[in-house]
């Protein structure tokens, strides 16, 4: 039994099969890349793993005993699954610190104020946001919001982290920085699934990559295998 088992998962949006009979598993500690053209169903897959949507059919089992579809979204966070949103969702009227405190306080059950503050400080220092902690999230630019999104998810102290295009819209230097951050998060023992369009980033970071197209898995393997797979090349370039 793997860390995360996705079995025959389908998500049907009124006739549109956003995810179609997808099966894969994730090993503890690995960094799995999830790629595919626009509309392939990647974010929908994350929405199902994080409990935002329930699969139409199929099941997702975490650590061999948690059936995701039977849990409320906030409970899924409590058992150690955190995510970022592709379209970031910061608490716009709160400071960076407060944003991260929310994750620290609520991510696990029964966290006390003193501990939450410590976690938040640690995460903010780790993500390089500590100096800017009093800035209001609504005043941040996109790269900073993306970073805050990661920091807030980390503050919930996840074991499985779902990153949805955290490099989109970053310049090369920022991309490098975020890649370093992701690598460090993995080294801390967090299992990561990363959706990414920035090929240099997924190829560089992932140990294994799954390619989705029209809701189905069309390839799976090491970065080299996937990059040389004719199906994948066709999906990306069109016929």
């Amino acid at each position: 039994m793997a860390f995360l088992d996705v079995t025959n998962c389908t998500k049907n949006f009124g006739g549109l099969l956003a995810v179609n009979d997808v099966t894969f598993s994730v090993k503890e500690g690995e960094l799995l890349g999830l790629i595919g053209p626009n509309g392939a169903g990647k974010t929908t897959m994350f929405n199902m793993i994080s409990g935002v949507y329930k699969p139409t059919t199929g099941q997702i089992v975490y650590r061999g005993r948690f059936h995701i579809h039977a849990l409320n979204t906030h409970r899924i966070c409590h058992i150690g699954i955190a995510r970022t949103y592709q379209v970031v969702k910061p608490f716009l009227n709160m400071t960076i610190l407060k944003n991260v405190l929310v994750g620290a306080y609520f991510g696990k059950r029964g966290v006390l104020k003193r501990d939450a503050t410590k976690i938040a400080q640690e995460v903010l220092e780790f993500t390089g946001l500590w100096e800017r902690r009093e800035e209001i999230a609504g005043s941040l630019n996109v790269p900073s919001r993306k970073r805050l999104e990661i920091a807030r998810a980390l503050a919930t102290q996840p074991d499985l982290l779902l990153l949805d295009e955290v490099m989109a819209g970053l310049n090369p230097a920022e991309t490098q920085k975020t890649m370093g951050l992701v690598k460090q998060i993995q080294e801390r023992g967090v299992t990561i699934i990363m959706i990414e369009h920035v090929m240099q980033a997924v190829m560089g970071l992932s140990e294994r990559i799954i390619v989705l197209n029209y809701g189905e898995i069309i390839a799976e393997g090491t970065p080299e295998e996937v990059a040389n797979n004719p199906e994948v090349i066709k999906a990306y370039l069109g016929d």
Partner: protein
Amino acid sequence: MKRISKLQIFYFLIVLFLFLLPLFIHNQYVIHLGIMTFLFITIAIGWNVLGGYTGQISFGHASFFGIGAYTTAILWLRMGIHPLLTIPLGGLLAAAFGVLWGYPLLRLRGYFFAIATIGVGEATRVLASFWESLTGGSSGLTLPVPKVFSKVPFYYEMLIIAFLVFLLSVWVYHSKFGLGLFAIKDDIDASETLGINTPLYKILALALSGFIVGIGGSFYAQYIFYVEPGDVFSFEKSVNLILINIVGGVGTIFGPVFGALIFLVLQEFVLVLFPNLHLLVYGLLLVLIIIYQPNGLAGLIAFVKRKIGKKKRVGGT
């Protein structure tokens, strides 16, 4: 040891002044104004916990006020329970009522929730008007007025209630619970994925909000000695709570305090001078605030304080 700041001394002096006021002011009208101000501060804070902290705008909060008022009137009149004892009951019944309709309605988002609360408020009023055997119908219930009657005890009752409710609202504002509520207000999806039990938090906020407003209603009944659906359940009362908070500053600690103060001052003084003009003045103020200072007077004061603080720092060093 913690140092006592100038601000804390200032707050302390204000509270002290309010507690001593009846000793040197014997004008019953002024005492009455004080009582009504404390009452409106209290119920405006109640609305703010749900509308301001949690972002769930309710147009139906008069239902809590009415339930509090009728709880006291009925228990006092029919069962002879001392009215002071009915205050917590009025609050609890209002809270329970909130849980009852909040459970289905809090799933609605944004405007849909707000519109549904109009229905709740109006339905409650109509129900109270028709359930004559319990409520005395639309002509209301008259409570026994004592022969010797002083407003001063009521002044202290309401002052203490307002003070405690204010402290409660400050505590909530800074607590983990409050952080959860403000998170829900900003983004409910992100809140849920970050581990907040959003349905539970929303319903707790509604219950607390209803409890506070219910307490206010209960006090009102024993102070006015008369309850009538058209008054305690009125839509106008619900709307006033929103206006007070917008003028004072939605979601701020002092918003309901400032808003209620201004509302009563305008109502009493402008109303006396130019009947009905107070609504016009209030409406004007409302428009100005929405355009120029969305955080209300509390936001304006914070803004001015920041400006002064900046000047001081620039000049000082």
